[in-house]
């Protein structure tokens, strides 16, 4: 078992350590802001191309500075607080949305050489540290905790607005995010199982070079995680929260000026962070072959290359897939993803334990598959019973 620890902060913490931490914090902060700005531009540009439009092309080369221009503009817009709103909660909600978006990225390793006796530690100003902001022993649980707090931001924003559409949007949002969090958590358990640790640095180290968790866990948890993450981010095709045709803007209808901008920022920052989490958990993070030059250069290069793939994927989803209906969304989350994730997890556990204990793997596999088939039969029976109940309710 590997407990995570940044060697910089294991002993007594002196002034140099604090200065290095402050430097890293500032670096991550600026990176996140710039990455979010670029992501907004990237989404608008790529989505524009996919729908046969030009997209932003005025501010700066290829319109790169469009987000900056929009950001500056927003400061000069009137900041309205509706009469019927709960003023304190209305002002609190953007904080609850934007702070978790920042904090989640702290545990993502963006570089460092792993494997061959190296533990991903680099030297910075004469001190050993990791190329990730923090490496707490709970690691991945922090990500789940922060995504739970982000639900509060959305929910309270809608509730405190004192208006119909935001309220409907936020109730939808909280039920949706909460439903997919269960599937998200279950697919992360598979990663923890294979890597044997909760720390993100340990998870990355266990995937050294090509032993990525996407194969080690058998791809199913990866697919579940990507679907659940898309729903968790409220991105299309799961964007019922802000379905324009039904709910105006969803939970942030009543927000304007900087408060609206912070929600927007948090949404795109969460997209960047969630892509980074997917890369860390399933695609080996900064792991990859070192080609030419020093080894440590290739960590960040591979990381950002993989990150870009997922950012593009989220944009592609938006341009391609039509929005779910609410009952389809709930059915997919509860009736498909959760049982599938649970069953796959048990199969993984059975095979791994059988491997350790020198049991016959085929017998164990057959037994596990038989149990899963029985469970599936039970589920089908349950669906039938539920449909009968539902029909009787509708008939009354």
């Amino acid at each position: 078992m590997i407990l995570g620890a940044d060697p910089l902060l294991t002993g007594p913490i002196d002034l140099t350590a604090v200065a290095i931490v402050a430097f890293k914090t500032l670096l991550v902060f600026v990176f996140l802001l710039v990455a979010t700005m670029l992501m907004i531009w990237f989404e608008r540009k790529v989505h524009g191309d996919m729908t046969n439009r030009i997209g932003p092309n005025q501010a700066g080369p290829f319109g790169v500075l469009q987000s900056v221009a929009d950001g500056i503009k927003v400061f000069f817009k009137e900041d309205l607080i509706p009469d019927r709103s709960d003023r304190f909660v209305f002002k609190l909600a953007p904080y609850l949305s934007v702070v978790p978006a920042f904090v989640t990225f702290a545990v993502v390793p963006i570089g460092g050489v792993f494997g061959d006796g190296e533990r991903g530690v680099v030297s910075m100003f004469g001190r050993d540290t990791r190329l990730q902001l923090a490496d707490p022993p709970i690691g991945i649980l922090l990500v789940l905790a922060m995504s739970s707090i982000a639900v509060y931001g959305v929910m309270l924003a809608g509730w405190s607005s004192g208006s119909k559409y935001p309220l409907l949007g936020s109730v939808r949002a909280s039920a949706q995010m909460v439903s997919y969090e269960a599937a998200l958590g279950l697919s992360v358990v598979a990663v923890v199982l294979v890597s044997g640790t909760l720390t993100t640095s340990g998870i990355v180290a266990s995937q050294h070079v090509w032993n990525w968790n996407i194969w080690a866990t058998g791809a199913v948890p990866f697919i579940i995680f990507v679907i659940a993450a898309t729903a968790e981010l409220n991105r299309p095709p799961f964007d019922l929260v802000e379905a324009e045709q039904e709910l105006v803007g969803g939970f942030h209808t009543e927000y304007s000026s900087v408060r609206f901008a912070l929600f927007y920022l948090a949404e795109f920052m969460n997209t960047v962070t969630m892509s980074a989490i997917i890369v860390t958990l399933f695609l080996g993070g900064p792991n990859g072959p070192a080609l030419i030059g020093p080894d440590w250069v290739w960590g960040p290069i591979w990381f950002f290359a993989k990150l870009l793939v997922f950012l593009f994927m989220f944009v592609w989803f938006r341009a391609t897939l039509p929005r779910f209906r609410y009952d389809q969304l709930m059915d997919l989350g509860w009736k498909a993803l959760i049982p599938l994730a649970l069953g796959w997890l048990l199969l993984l556990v059975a095979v791994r334990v059988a491997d350790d204990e020198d049991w016959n793997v085929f017998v164990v596999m057959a037994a596990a598959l038989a149990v899963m088939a029985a469970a599936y039969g039970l589920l089908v029976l349950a669906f039938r019973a539920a449909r009968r109940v539902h029909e009787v309710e509708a008939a009354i």
Partner: protein
Amino acid sequence: MGQYLPILMLLVLAVVFAALSFFASRLLAPRRPTAAKSAPYECGIVPSREPPERFPVRFYLIAMIFIVFDIEIIFLYPYAVIHRELGGFGLVEMAVFVVAVFAAFVYLIANGALDWGPVKHLRRVDPRVSTSRTAATTVRRVGLEGREPETGEAA
């Protein structure tokens, strides 16, 4: 606890960033609220009703079921970390635990706690009741003398 120092720093930085944004907006943005601007937005229609305070009970059910499931999922994490040390004993224990979780899950589904939306297969109409008997044929309307015949669009 030193490992959490960077997270704390980033948290403080994020809060300061948001607070400074609000401060800048307060300095730069105009403040001319009117009654129309600060009324709830309903696509230009003057709001006539309060936002609903009662919600379909299914949303509350989802919240309760989530709490139960999330706690059960959290119990899987420590097992996932040390499943090697526990070996076959751990596997059997975990299987029993998951069976308990799954039984509850099947019970919920069978009761229709997770059902949304319209019924896909409507019940067949009772064959003992003739289809010609509808509200229009069985209800005798009185007091219609001297009135315009209803055209359907009047209401």
